[in-house]
C-alpha cells in the first residue's frame, strides 16, 4: 500500500513536471516598452496552483473589498508598455488603476521621476495623480500618449511607452525600488501603487505681463507688438496674451510679476514710504575722513548701520549740536533738534546763539561745497566754519527756506556722534528714545528739483537770532554758524581743541515693503535669485545680504553688491506672486512681430525659493533638507 502511494506520488510529480510550463523571470523589472508582460518578475504574482500545477490565472476575478467603497465615475483601459491597465477615476477625483494580470488591488497612480506632479504639495502627495478640480473626465489617446482631461481643462498626459511599475507604496525619487515591493503590493491592502510617467500638460491662459525697462541696455532693443504665451510641459505654446505696442525701440525685461529693474542702482525712494514712518529704516553712514595735513574732512565712503549712533553725553568733551535734517520722498526737508543733548551743554561756549529759541531757522543751500574745513573756532559770540565754497562763493545763488511747521514732538532716535574722529568709536545706547522737537518745511517742487539734481547737495541750516541769520554770508562779519546738511543729519562735536567738527553723516531710508526677490541675469537668460527679507537687507551684521557700494545722493539710488538686475517686492516669503509662479507656473515665450524672441527659464529652487544650479555647492556642501 505504501508502495502504491509512493508510486502514485512519483507519477503525480512526473505528471506535474510534464504539465507545468516553464516560467522564468529572467527579464527582471519592467522598465521599458514591451508588448508582453509575461516573463517579468511581477508575473510571479499571477500564478495559481491548480492540481499542483502553476498556471497563470485567467477568467473572472473578484477584487478585494477596499476599506472605503470607491465611487467610480469614469473608466478607461489602455496598454502601457505592453501591460493592459484599467484607469478608474473616483468621485474624489483620484485616479486609480487596475491591471488585468494583477486585479486584486486597486492601485494609486503616481508619477515617477524627479519633478513632482503637484509642486504645491509635499511628500508623496505631490506625486499622486489626482485632479484639483472637475466633475467630468475624458480620456484621449494616441499610440504614444494617454491624456486624461477634466471638464475644466486640467490635463495629465501619461507616456504609454514609458515606465510602469507596481509597488507597495508611493516610491519617491529618494527611495530605491526593490522587487520585494511588488510582493508587498499584494499583501499590503491599501498601499498598492502603480508608477507611471506622467506630466501635467494643462494649458493655462497667459496672465498680465509687464515690460520692465532694462536700464543697463544689455537687452536687445525691440519695438512693435509684444505679447506673451504660456508653454505647457510638452513645449506647446498656448494662446497669446493681449499685446503691448512699443512705438520706439527700447530695452526690456518681460515679467509676469510686478518687478523693477535695479541694474543702475536700487531706488529706495521709489519704494519708500513717507519719511516719518520711523520704522523699517536703513541708516547709511557717510564716512568723513579727516586729513590733518590740510585740516580737512572729506566724505570718503559709505557704511550701512544698524542704527545711528547715540548719546553724545557719554562721550567726554563731546558736544553735539544734534540738528538733524533729511529729505523726504515728497521733496520736503525735515529736521529735528534734540533738546536733551542740548540741555547738557547749554552753557557750553560753542552752542550757537539762538538755537534754543529756535524761532525761525532757515535752510540755506550751496551745491558747490565738496569738503568742509574747521579752520575757525566757534564761540558764543559766533565763529565761522569755513568751506572752500564759502570762501569762493557769493551770496546770490543761495536760497532760504523758513522752517516753521512743527510736525511731531517725538524724536524717534537720539543721534549722537563718534567720540573720537580718528578711532570712530560709536556709543550706542540701544533703543532709548528722547523727546525733542521736529520741524518741517516744504520746498516748492521746482526749487527742489533745481537744488537736488547734482551729486553733492548740501543745504545749510541757518539760525535766526533776532533779525539776523547766522551765517548768511561767511565772508562778511564772521557771525554765521553752519549747523547741518539737508538730505542728511549732521552732528558736530567739540574736540579737545574746543573746535566743532563735522562728523559722519547719516542718511535715512525708509524700507517699507522692501523684502523681495533679487534676481540677477547670469547671461543667456539664466537667472540667479533669492528672497531677501527686509531685516537682512537692513542689517549690518557680518554677513549682510547686500553690500552698498555707492549712493547717488541726488536720486537716492544705492548701488548694490552683488549686482542684481530685477527686484520683485513682496513681503511674505511663503505666499506671493513670484513664488506662486515659480511653483505652479510654466515656461513662457515672448512674441514680437512674427517671432518668438525669448523663452523663460526652467530652473530648480530650494525650499526658500532660491534658484539652485549646483545643489551641493549652493549650500556649502550641506545637505539641503526640505521644510
Amino acid at each position, binding site marked *: 500500500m505504501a508502495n502504491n502511494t509512493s508510486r502514485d506520488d512519483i507519477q503525480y510529480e512526473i505528471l506535474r513536471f510534464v504539465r507545468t510550463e516553464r516560467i522564468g523571470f529572467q527579464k527582471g523589472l519592467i522598465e521599458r516598452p514591451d508588448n508582453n508582460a509575461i516573463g517579468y518578475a511581477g508575473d510571479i504574482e499571477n500564478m495559481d496552483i491548480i492540481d499542483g500545477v502553476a498556471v497563470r490565472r485567467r477568467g*473572472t476575478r*473578484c477584487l478585494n473589498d477596499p476599506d472605503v467603497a470607491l465611487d*467610480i465615475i469614469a473608466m478607461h483601459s489602455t496598454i502601457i508598455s505592453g501591460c493592459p491597465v484599467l484607469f478608474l477615476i473616483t468621485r474624489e477625483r483620484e485616479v486609480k488603476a487596475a491591471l488585468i494580470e494583477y486585479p486584486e488591488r486597486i492601485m494609486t497612480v503616481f508619477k515617477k521621476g524627479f519633478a513632482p506632479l503637484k509642486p504645491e504639495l509635499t511628500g508623496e502627495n505631490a506625486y499622486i495623480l489626482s485632479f484639483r478640480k472637475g466633475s467630468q473626465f475624458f480620456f484621449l489617446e494616441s499610440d504614444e500618449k494617454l491624456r486624461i482631461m477634466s471638464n475644466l481643462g486640467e490635463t495629465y498626459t501619461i507616456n504609454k511607452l514609458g515606465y510602469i511599475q507596481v509597488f507597495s507604496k508611493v516610491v519617491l525619487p529618494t527611495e530605491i525600488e526593490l522587487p520585494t515591493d511588488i510582493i508587498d503590493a499584494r499583501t499590503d491592502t491599501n498601499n498598492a501603487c502603480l508608477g507611471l510617467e506622467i506630466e501635467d500638460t494643462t494649458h493655462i491662459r497667459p496672465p498680465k505681463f509687464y515690460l520692465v525697462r532694462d536700464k543697463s541696455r544689455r537687452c536687445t532693443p525691440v519695438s512693435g507688438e509684444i505679447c506673451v504665451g504660456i508653454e505647457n510641459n510638452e513645449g506647446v505654446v498656448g494662446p497669446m496674451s493681449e499685446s503691448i505696442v512699443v512705438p520706439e525701440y527700447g530695452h526690456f525685461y518681460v515679467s509676469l510679476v510686478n518687478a523693477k529693474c535695479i541694474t543702475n542702482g536700487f531706488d529706495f525712494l521709489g519704494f519708500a514710504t513717507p519719511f516719518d514712518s520711523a520704522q523699517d529704516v536703513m541708516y547709511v553712514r557717510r564716512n568723513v575722513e579727516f586729513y590733518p595735513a590740510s585740516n580737512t574732512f572729506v566724505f570718503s565712503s559709505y557704511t550701512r548701520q544698524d542704527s545711528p549712533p547715540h548719546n553724545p553725553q557719554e562721550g567726554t568733551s563731546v558736544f553735539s549740536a544734534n540738528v538733524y535734517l533729511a529729505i523726504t520722498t515728497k521733496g520736503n526737508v525735515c529736521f529735528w533738534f534734540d533738546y536733551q543733548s542740548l540741555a547738557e551743554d547749554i552753557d557750553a561756549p560753542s552752542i550757537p546763539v539762538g538755537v534754543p529759541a529756535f524761532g525761525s531757522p532757515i535752510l540755506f543751500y550751496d551745491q558747490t561745497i565738496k569738503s568742509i574745513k574747521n579752520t575757525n573756532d566757534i564761540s558764543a559770540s559766533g565763529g565761522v566754519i569755513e568751506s572752500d565754497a564759502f570762501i569762493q562763493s557769493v551770496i546770490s545763488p543761495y536760497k532760504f527756506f523758513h522752517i516753521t511747521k512743527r510736525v511731531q514732538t517725538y524724536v524717534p532716535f537720539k543721534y549722537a556722534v563718534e567720540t573720537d574722529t580718528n578711532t570712530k568709536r560709536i556709543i550706542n545706547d540701544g533703543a532709548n528714545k528722547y523727546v525733542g522737537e521736529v520741524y518741517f518745511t516744504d520746498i516748492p517742487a521746482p526749487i527742489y528739483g533745481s537744488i537736488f539734481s547734482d551729486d553733492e547737495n548740501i543745504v545749510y541750516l541757518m539760525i535766526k537770532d533776532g533779525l539776523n541769520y547766522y551765517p548768511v554770508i561767511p565772508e562778511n562779519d564772521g557771525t554765521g554758524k553752519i549747523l547741518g546738511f539737508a538730505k542728511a543729519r549732521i552732528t558736530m562735536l567739540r574736540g579737545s581743541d574746543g573746535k566743532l567738527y563735522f562728523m559722519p553723516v547719516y542718511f535715512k531710508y525708509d524700507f517699507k515693503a522692501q523684502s523681495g526677490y533679487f534676481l540677477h541675469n547670469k547671461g543667456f537668460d539664466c537667472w540667479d535669485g533669492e528672497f531677501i527679507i527686509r531685516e537682512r537687507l537692513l542689517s549690518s551684521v557680518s554677513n549682510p545680504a547686500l553690500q552698498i557700494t555707492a549712493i547717488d545722493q541726488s536720486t537716492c539710488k544705492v548701488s548694490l553688491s552683488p549686482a542684481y*538686475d530685477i527686484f520683485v517686492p513682496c513681503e511674505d516669503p511663503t505666499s506671493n506672486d513670484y513664488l506662486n509662479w515659480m511653483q505652479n*507656473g510654466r515656461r*513662457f515665450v*515672448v512674441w514680437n512681430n512674427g517671432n*518668438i524672441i525669448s523663452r523663460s527659464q*526652467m530652473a530648480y529652487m530650494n525650499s526658500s525659493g532660491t534658484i539652485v544650479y549646483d*545643489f551641493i555647492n549652493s549650500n556649502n556642501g550641506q545637505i539641503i533638507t526640505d521644510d
Partner: protein
Amino acid sequence: MGNVEPSKNNKMLLALKRAYVPVTAIEYTTLRSRKYEKDSTIEIPTDISFCTQSGNRVFILQKGTILVGDFNSMLFRDRVTVDFSVLGIEQLSYGAVVFGNNGLHFIDENLSLQRVTGVSTNSVKAYCSSGNVCYAVTEDNEVLAIVLEFSAQGRPYPVSTSISKAISAADWGDNPQMVAIDNTLYIARAHDIYIYREGAWTRYDFGVHTIRKIGALANRLVVSFHDAFTLFEVPIVIPTADDFEGS
C-alpha cells in the same frame, strides 16, 4: 517595507523643486528667435461639456460651440457652428456624430455638418462608439447604430438604424451605461447587462447587485458595483462576451 534609506544625494534632490522663472530677458534674439504665427483664434479647453476623439482630432463642446483641435497640441483652432442645442458628441470613423435637439448630425473630415439619414432622435440617454459604429439609446428606449455608408459615387454618408427591435420592450431607465468593445455592445441597467453581438441580443443578470459603472479592459468587460453587501465592491473582470451567451 522594502524601501531602503535614501541616499544623501537623493534627499538633496528631493529638496529641490522644479521652478519656472517669471522673468525673461530679451537678449540674444538672433540666436533664440524663431518664426511663430500668432493665432488669435486659438482656444484652450476650460469648460467642456462633451469631448470625443477621432484619430488626431479632438472635438469638444464648450459653451455651446463645437471646437475642433489637435491631439498633439491640445489647441483648438477650428469651430463648427451649430444652430441647435448639442446633447452629446461621439466619435464615428474619421468624424463625430453630434446628438442635437433637432436630430442627428455628422461632422465629416472637412468639418462640415451633415444630417444623419435614417432613424433619428431628438433626445438620447446614452451613447458610445466602437470606432466604426456609434451606438445611442434614445428617450424612446430605442437603440440606434450609426454607421457610414457609401453612395454609388463613393461619397460617404451617415446612416442611423434601429437595432433594438428584438428587445423593443426593454426599458433602459434614466441612466443606462454603454460601452462597445470590438463588435460587441454592452448596455448596463441597474442590475443587468444587455449584450448585442452579431445581430443578436443576450442578457446577463447580476441579481441583487447594482451596477455602478461599466468599462473595458483588454477587450473584456469591467463592471463596478454599488452593492456593499456583496463581494462585488470594485470592478471585476469578465473574460469575454461569450460567457454571457445563453444566460
